[in-house]
């Protein structure tokens, strides 16, 4: 665009120069013809000296732009060509015109006369202006045309690319629906689609393998864990066990219980990931919540935590019953764990959300909170999967879970 502008700008003086030169040459030729013709015509008339003088006076007064003057024969005056600018004699307004002039010696009846002819020529200002206007006009046409053409071209040329992009945007590794890219004639785009297809296929297979791996690994671990647990139970029954040995065995037992739990939770996550649950069950959320509160009552009491509940009755939702139970339990247990003794927990169930609010000291790291095995707090006694499971269950049931910290309270909200 700038290039076009520069070229056109340079063309303005060039055009002017060319037009002006052609014009001047033509006019010079024209002036010369007039001078020659005048001299020839006057000679043809063969007027007497007196009549000639009169005629010349008459000529000078009626023939605009020319002038015949008698000059003395002594000395020769060279022809001269020049340009003058002057005010029109008959116009009142200031109006400068440019004239191309020729003064030359003509011979009438063998006497020398100075013949001057002036022909109007376009002023350079006007010429430049007209050329500039024309140039700008064409510049605008070129630019507008280029823009329109470019847009049209890019729409057709980039259409396959846009299609590919739109399809990529809708792709979700979790759903694993294969993408079919449109065929195009452009080899670059065809190559791009091909590469993308391979990349996606590879990703899906890696993702699947990994998911299956988690599930298989957890499954395979169950049996050795079961053997370990049973052996430990037998060891604890040994009558020769000293107190020290008993405590070691009990510590092992605790660690084993924890690893079994982590394993079970991993298995649960893998199963949710692999969509092995029915999410179309009709569940009564308020009833599940009530059940959960009753089950956990002793734990509230033990830490002397006061619980206040406000719940809409008969809230039925679509989802998976056992998963929702896990969701509620995990949220409540999380609140119990992280509330200091004598603290308070508020449960609010509305038609569109469920909120668990508990008193806390400082805000937790939102980015880490729902990630697997990344305890956002200093306390490490959990499996590190409780909140990750909450998030996965919400994702699976197309709910969402959010955390915020307000006025010294942790608030976990689930939106249905």
């Amino acid at each position, binding site marked *: 665009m700038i290039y076009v502008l520069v070229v056109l700008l340079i063309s303005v003086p060039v055009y002017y120069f060319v037009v002006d030169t052609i014009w001047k040459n033509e006019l010079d030729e024209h002036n010369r013809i007039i001078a020659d013709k005048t001299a020839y015509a006057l000679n043809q008339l063969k007027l007497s000296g007196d009549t000639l003088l009169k005629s010349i006076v008459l000529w000078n007064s009626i023939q605009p732009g020319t002038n015949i003057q008698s000059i003395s024969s002594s000395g020769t005056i060279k022809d001269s060509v020049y340009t003058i600018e002057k005010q029109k004699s008959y116009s009142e307004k200031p109006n400068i015109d440019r004239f191309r002039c020729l003064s030359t010696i003509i011979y009438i009846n063998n006497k020398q006369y100075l013949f001057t002819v002036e022909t109007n020529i376009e002023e350079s200002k006007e010429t430049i202006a007209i050329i500039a206007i024309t140039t700008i006009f064409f510049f605008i046409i070129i630019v507008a045309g280029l823009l329109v053409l470019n847009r049209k071209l890019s729409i057709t040329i980039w259409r396959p690319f846009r299609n590919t992009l739109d399809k990529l945007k809708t792709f979700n590794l979790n759903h694993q629906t294969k993408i079919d890219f449109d065929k195009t004639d452009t080899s670059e785009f065809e190559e791009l689609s091909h590469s993308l297809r391979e990349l996606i296929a590879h990703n899906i297979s890696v993702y699947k393998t990994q998911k299956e791996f988690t599930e298989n690994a957890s499954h395979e671990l169950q049996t050795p864990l079961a053997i370990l647990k049973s052996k430990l139970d037998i060891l604890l029954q040994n009558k020769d066990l000293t107190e020290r040995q008993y405590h070691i065995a009990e510590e092992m037992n605790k660690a084993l*219980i924890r690893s079994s739990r982590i394993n079970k939770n991993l298995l649960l996550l893998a199963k949710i990931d692999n969509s092995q649950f029915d999410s179309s069950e009709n569940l009564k959320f308020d009833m599940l919540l009530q059940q959960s509160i009753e089950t956990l009552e002793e734990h509230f009491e033990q830490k002397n935590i006061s619980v206040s509940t406000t719940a809409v009755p008969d809230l039925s939702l679509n989802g998976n019953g056992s998963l929702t139970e896990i969701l509620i339990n995990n949220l409540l247990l999380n609140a119990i764990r992280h509330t200091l003794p004598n603290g308070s927990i508020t449960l609010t169930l509305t038609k569109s959300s469920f909120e668990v609010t508990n008193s806390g000291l400082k805000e937790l790291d939102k980015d880490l909170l729902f990630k697997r095995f990344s305890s956002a707090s200093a306390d490490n006694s959990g499996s590190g999967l409780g909140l990750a499971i909450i998030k996965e269950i919400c994702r699976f049931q197309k709910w969402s879970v959010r955390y915020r910290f307000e006025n010294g309270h942790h608030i976990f909200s689930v939106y249905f």
Partner: protein
Amino acid sequence: MKILIIEDEEELARSIAEYLSEENYLCEFAASYNQALDKIEMYQYDCILLDIMLPDGNGMKLLEELKLQDKQDGVIIISAKNALDDKIKGLQIGADDYLTKPFHLSELTARIYSIIRRKQFSNSNIVRQNELLIDLLAKTVSVNNDPVTLTKKEFDLLIYFIGNKNRVISKSTLAEHLSGDFADMLDNHDFVYAHVKNLKKKLYDAGSGHYLKTVYGTGYKWMGS
């Protein structure tokens, strides 16, 4: 009491048998579907522990077979799969209980105890230990014929101890039994201590002997005959 352990994992089967043998249970093994099929056709068991994932067949089929033959053996499914569908299906076909691996042997023993008691004493299921009388069906307890009021958890604990007489049961195992899937989320297991303390106190106050002993501070043992 005869128990059939259908489990392809030999070590686990042996552990179970070892733990149960001290309780006067006689254990037999079947490591495959066909072995198990032979045994259940030939003998009668008080309780069958059934792993549903066997190398040569699905344990669920055995369950159907038992039902078909109208056998009254109690069945506890022990499975590495914690699939709710399996659980429901198993219980529908006729299993009495479902236990997910890994489990504590004391948990298994308590469940075997309950099932055998239920099967054999379906009308009046009463356990007596000197002055202590427990009605498993009505879920009541009395000492010297005076009723003792226990909470659901306390009664549950008492049955667990009775089912694991003379065994050391650690606090963490009890915590897992009492709170099921929540145990790992809880900071401490003091709630176990609170329940046990209440149970002990109630029984002792009613005039029962000191049957429940503390072992090394964190374990418990029910002394029985």
